[in-house]
């Protein structure tokens, strides 16, 4: 029990699965969740377009689906631009609509 408390003291801030910053208050057993900053915060919106394939590839899953902002932590404004850009790129055959999984039965 005591060891557990000490561990938390060493690293009071951790990022959990949903992209929230978890700050544990030692000895109280409470933790607060703070929203993480959008990863595209410093990128101008004009950079998010269908030609920027390097960027768009980061925001699609292995299956070729658009990654939800719940996972990636992108702000709503930027997420809308990303979604539109991916759809445009798909129409122009720059990205695939679906990519089949190889080990499908």
């Amino acid at each position, binding site marked *: 029990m005591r060891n557990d408390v000490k561990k938390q003291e060493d690293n009071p801030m951790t990022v959990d699965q949903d992209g929230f910053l978890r700050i544990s208050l030692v000895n109280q057993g409470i933790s607060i969740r703070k929203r993480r900053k959008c990863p595209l915060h410093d990128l101008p919106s004009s950079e998010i377009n269908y*030609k920027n394939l390097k960027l768009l590839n980061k925001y699609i899953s292995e299956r070729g689906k658009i990654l939800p902002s719940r996972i990636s932590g992108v702000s709503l404004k930027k997420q809308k631009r990303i979604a539109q850009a991916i759809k445009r790129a798909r129409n122009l055959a720059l990205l695939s609509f679906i990519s089949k999984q190889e080990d499908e039965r």
Partner: protein
Amino acid sequence: MAFYEVIFITRQDLAPAEVDALSDKFKKIIEERKGKLVSKEYWGLRTLAYKIKKNTKGHYVLLNIETEYSALAEVERVMGFDENIIRKAIFSIDDVNKEPSELKVSVNASDKNVKHN
């Protein structure tokens, strides 16, 4: 006058000179109607993410245009007739980006330095 991005994909077995001829044709249509071709990009013979009309590859050409919409409508109509064009898209943009996009290979399809993959 507004800025537009016109992008079209041609069939894979078209010669580079024919691709240039196509974009010249659209340039002429725009200029006849007092529009302006601001810049042009050729993205090379790219592999398509999926087959379009039995083509696995296609020549990509991007035209940045400043014009009234009426001229653009004519371009779109002519593109629809052309069997060599397998896909087209027109987007309105706020301003033309001066820097070439990462996909750009050269200005003209018939440039000798262009590597066809």
